[in-house]
């Protein structure tokens, strides 16, 4: 009688089992990582509270209007969306200290010392009910890009790193004084105005 060892477990079906699982996960997977543009809505005014009209100086406000034909009006002038980014950058920064652009107020900022900041500027984005969402997002995107470019330029000049790399590797919840300093110089101020019916239905 030949000596017989313990018979090996047949592992040839292992591949099949693994394939089965693999196919299940392949099918049930959605790989998309969600991305988007973050915004903060203004809180609803209290009902009994009288609507206080905060007076904003004309020079501090940048009106961007998209009408129902998806046309873009900036400060009441028709504008091509290609020019919006440059126009917004000039408004936020006011590099030449023009009198019709937001006032530059010297502010103490960490790392930068006294720095002229256009503290009170507001970009007012108005849309019609008939504006397409796609156009609206394109405009939002251009405005965000204007801020991001300014922040990036400043960050590269001052710290030698890109703005988005300032927080890289650290917990997003953690404090980041260098990023905060840049945010203080270029605060994101896009106001999505109360809905209006411009030009009716």
């Amino acid at each position, binding site marked *: 009688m030949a000596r017989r060892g313990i018979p090996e477990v047949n592992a040839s079906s292992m591949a099949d089992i693994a394939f089965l699982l*693999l196919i299940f996960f392949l099918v049930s997977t959605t790989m998309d*990582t969600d991305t988007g543009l*973050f915004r903060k*809505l203004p809180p609803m005014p209290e009902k009994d509270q009288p609507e206080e009209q905060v007076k904003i100086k004309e020079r501090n406000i940048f009106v961007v209007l998209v009408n129902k034909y998806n046309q873009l009006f900036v400060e009441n002038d028709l504008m091509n*969306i290609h020019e919006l980014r440059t126009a917004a950058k000039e408004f936020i920064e006011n590099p030449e200290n023009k009198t019709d652009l937001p006032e530059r107020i010297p502010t103490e900022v960490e790392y930068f010392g006294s720095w002229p900041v256009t503290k009170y500027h507001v970009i007012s984005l108005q849309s019609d009910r008939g504006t397409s969402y796609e*156009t609206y997002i394109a405009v939002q*995107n251009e405005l965000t890009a204007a801020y991001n470019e300014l922040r990036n330029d400043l960050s590269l000049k001052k710290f030698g790193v890109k703005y988005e790399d300032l927080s890289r590797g650290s917990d997003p919840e953690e404090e980041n004084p260098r990023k905060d300093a840049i945010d203080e110089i270029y605060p994101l101020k896009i106001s999505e105005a109360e809905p209006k019916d411009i030009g009716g239905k």
Partner: protein
Amino acid sequence: MARFKHKSKSETPGISTASLPDIVFMLLFFFMVSTTIRDTSLKVAVTTPFATELVKLEKKSLVSFIYIGRPHDKETFGTAPRIQLNDAFASTEKIREFISSEREKMSEGDRNKMSVSLKADGDTDMGIITDVKQELRKASALKINYSAKSGTQKQIFDNLK
């Protein structure tokens, strides 16, 4: 010439498939780790617009989704853009209820970190979006995120035409 022909006795050996399970397992683990199982089935067609200045949505558990788009089932629900919350169509008034139930699910400490992602089709009008935004303000869910997918600037502008 014939004498160079080497009559080999052994056949070409078959490729060993012994490592196949390992390879498959490797793939399996990759997909298991990268998977997020779709928990809501979409009843509306949503093609989010393109954008370049995107921020990643961290911590999915803190995000609630609102879908806006045209219904897949045109015969039953028509072609006007509708709002979908969880698994069903809803009216704008339902949003406040939805937000408070989403808040209930979260732990006390996380409630103020809650954000809402608007997954809206690029083709919808701002009217419905504005209504949703107003409802969100009433529900004081102020952190919102306009869902968009990454694209080049050229794609964005070309799409507008």
